[in-house]
């Protein structure tokens, strides 16, 4: 593998990890980002599942990019993605039954997660497998980190714990608002705001420096 190919791959990785981060830059795939972030463990499992499905399906689509007819590409993407989602669902059911129960229908909803369709349509259908791999790895890790941040804030403020371990002590009553659905919207809104603030500063510095 040439050096140019490698560095281009790395730049795709960073691009989709930060500048085009699905959660705060493009606001995609937030159904699950809102629903599974009541505790860190669920968020971690969900993030890993999405990343795995994203990587495998992107590479599969990228390998088949020359033989998928353009008119039926959307349904082809869906069939490829749902096949891998069924596999992930089985693995979760067997090895992590409590988490699988808590995630409920949101595992199945990975199929319609806009991130997967978006990466397939915008990237994997046009690029060779190695670039698709780096791109989907970046998107997947970006998504996982985003929902981990949301889940950490919600679990810490709502239940006073992290990964189920009490950290704020018994005196912390738990902030009920954060745990109900509207709390999820508020936390996500402020998360988008802070991420945009950091990103602006980052970009400004790059231009002036």
């Amino acid at each position, binding site marked *: 593998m040439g050096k140019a190919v490698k560095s281009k791959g790395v730049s795709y990785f960073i691009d989709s990890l930060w500048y085009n981060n699905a959660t705060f830059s493009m*606001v995609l795939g937030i159904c699950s980002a809102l629903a599974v972030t009541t505790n860190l463990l669920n968020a971690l499992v969900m993030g890993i599942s999405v990343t795995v499905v994203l990587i495998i399906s992107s590479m599969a689509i990228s390998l088949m990019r020359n033989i998928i007819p353009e008119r039926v590409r959307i349904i082809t993407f869906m069939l490829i993605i749902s096949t891998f989602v069924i596999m992930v669902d089985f693995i979760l059911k067997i090895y992590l039954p409590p988490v699988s129960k808590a995630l409920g*229908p949101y595992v199945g909803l990975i199929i*319609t997660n806009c991130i997967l369709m978006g990466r397939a349509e915008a990237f994997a259908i046009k690029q060779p497998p190695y670039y698709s791999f780096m791109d989907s790895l970046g998107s997947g890790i970006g998504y996982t980190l985003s929902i981990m941040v949301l889940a950490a804030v919600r679990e810490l403020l709502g239940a006073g714990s992290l990964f189920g371990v009490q950290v704020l002590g018994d005196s912390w009553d738990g902030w009920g608002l954060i745990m109900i*659905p509207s709390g999820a919207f508020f936390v996500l809104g402020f998360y988008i705001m802070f991420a945009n603030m950091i990103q602006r500063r980052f970009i400004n510095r790059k231009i002036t420096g």
Partner: protein
Amino acid sequence: MKTLILIFFASVLTNNIALTYFLGMCPFIAISKNTKAASGMGMAVTYVMVITAIVNYTIYTFVLIPMGLEYLAFLIFIIVIAGIVQVLEMLVERFFPVLYTSFGIFLPLITVNCAILGLSLFMILRDYSFLQMIFYSLGSGLGWWLAIAAMAGLRRMLMLSEPLASLGDAGITVILAGFMALSFFGFSGILPA
């Protein structure tokens, strides 16, 4: 009868599919800029939801369960949804040109709307009977419509104000959705638990 009415009102108000289960969030944020488009999308979602729920329910109970193929549910459901959306688009365009201009253009977007697939998955998780399923899907569709139309109305007001620049268009919409979810949460008093 009473349970049917309860299921209907619960799915419209207290367990609103957009504001409590966060389904269909991508179009909820992307298409709620304009009231007319939002309403058209809501109408399309309601139609597709009821039709796909009926077809998916029938296939699941009469084909997948007797053959022991429940694990194929995701795959079958998504094929059914994509197929129905395609057929519906053609039929509406051919026979109801007026309706087509009001919501037909949103039909292709609906295949990837997670509210539709989510509804089918919730329906089998909760073991609804046929009638319950009809009321549930109709209520969920109307609830989604109500939520996106209300959001579009709120965002019209937003044009007159200047939210923080870093919040961006999406950020302020998410915060607004939070307040809306809070007010819908208040409806929980009207239904017995």
